[in-house]
């Protein structure tokens, strides 16, 4: 029984039905000025307040109404301090980890959403590190609330935050091996036994056509 067509992916656990669609990968270049709404002001203010803007910020991406600054990891703490003090981004909403196994050399990303209450603005910082050297300086001294978020990102992705006061596992048991949210970590489910049939775990199922 082999039918072809767009729907139903074979060989993966993708039951969404859109496995046959080919998606263009996200563009890797910078967005061009003008960025729109308050993003230009943010970029200008940052350039004014931080002379090393051009070698710290790798890319500025404006996508779907949101501004993302890609920062080099060595300059992360400096940029964060400038953003917090001069541009009034007082609050950091945490750290999210992302794993792109196909981007060799830049597999692990850490994303910091920032919020400015005084100006009602939101931007995002993104730092990329390679898998074999997954170290990012910790921003706990800038925004203390990131303490547990960085622990979670370490736990789930294996990104080590240098300078963190006490980087341990927070969600998984302390002696867990591996970093669960990475793409190469298996889902870990078991197959379910019914009367006369077995349904495999979600990452090993056939596509339902």
């Amino acid at each position: 029984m082999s039918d072809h067509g767009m729907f139903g992916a074979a060989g993966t656990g993708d039951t969404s039905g859109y496995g046959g669609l080919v998606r263009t990968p996200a563009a890797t270049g910078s967005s061009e000025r003008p960025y729109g709404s308050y993003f230009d002001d943010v970029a200008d203010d940052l350039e004014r307040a931080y002379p090393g803007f051009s070698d710290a910020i790798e890319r500025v991406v404006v996508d779907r109404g949101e501004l993302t600054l890609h920062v080099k990891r060595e300059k992360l703490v400096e940029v964060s301090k400038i953003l917090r003090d001069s541009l009034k981004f007082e609050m950091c909403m945490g750290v999210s980890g992302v794993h792109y196994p196909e981007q060799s050399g830049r597999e692990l990303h850490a994303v910091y959403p920032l919020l400015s209450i005084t100006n009602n603005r939101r931007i995002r910082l993104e730092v990329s590190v390679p898998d074999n050297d997954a170290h990012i300086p910790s921003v706990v001294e800038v925004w203390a609330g990131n303490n547990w978020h960085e622990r979670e990102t370490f736990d789930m992705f294996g990104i080590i935050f240098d300078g963190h006061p006490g980087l341990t596992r927070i969600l998984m048991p302390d002696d867990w091996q591996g970093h669960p949210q990475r793409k190469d970590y298996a889902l870990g489910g078991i197959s379910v036994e019914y009367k006369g049939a077995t349904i495999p775990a979600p990452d090993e199922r056939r596509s339902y056509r």
Partner: protein
Amino acid sequence: MGLEEKLPSGFVLTTVEKLAGYMRKNSLWPATFGLACCAIEMMAVGSAAKYDISRFGMEVFRASPRQADLMIVAGRVSNKMAPVLRQIYDQMAAPKWVLAMGACASSGGMFNNYAIVQGVDHVVPVDIYLPGCPPRPEMLMDAILKLHTSIYDEKLGPNREAVIKSVEEAALNALPTHQMKGLLA
């Protein structure tokens, strides 16, 4: 249980069984083991707002497992929580029963992954499973009432050993699940 062992089973023993069963089922005290969403439905059942288990004498959710009879495992049990679950179960004094409330406690539910124990019967022996996500408070009460009837019918002494032996024999001779014919086969 000294006296009943020495008397012949029959009239005296069955009356004691019925009496003990009646006593046990009518004031079963649950231990709070609310973990996730099912815990909120369990609180709705215990809170006497609309669905009230104090009519069965069960509104006292004992915090200490040593004073509790029934452990209602309400919610998903993660791998980190499993040793705690076992410890609480061990701290309960016999006679004790376990009610696996919800799909996650019965079988891992929708979370078939690395983090969740696929059914608390991997950790503690379960007496009654209650499906649902989350089960309505009426479903929880129905499960508790079914558990009550099975507690009432529990045997003591030599009758109990006979029951255990027959159940084990039935389980050993039963048709395994993968040989049964269901809707999927």
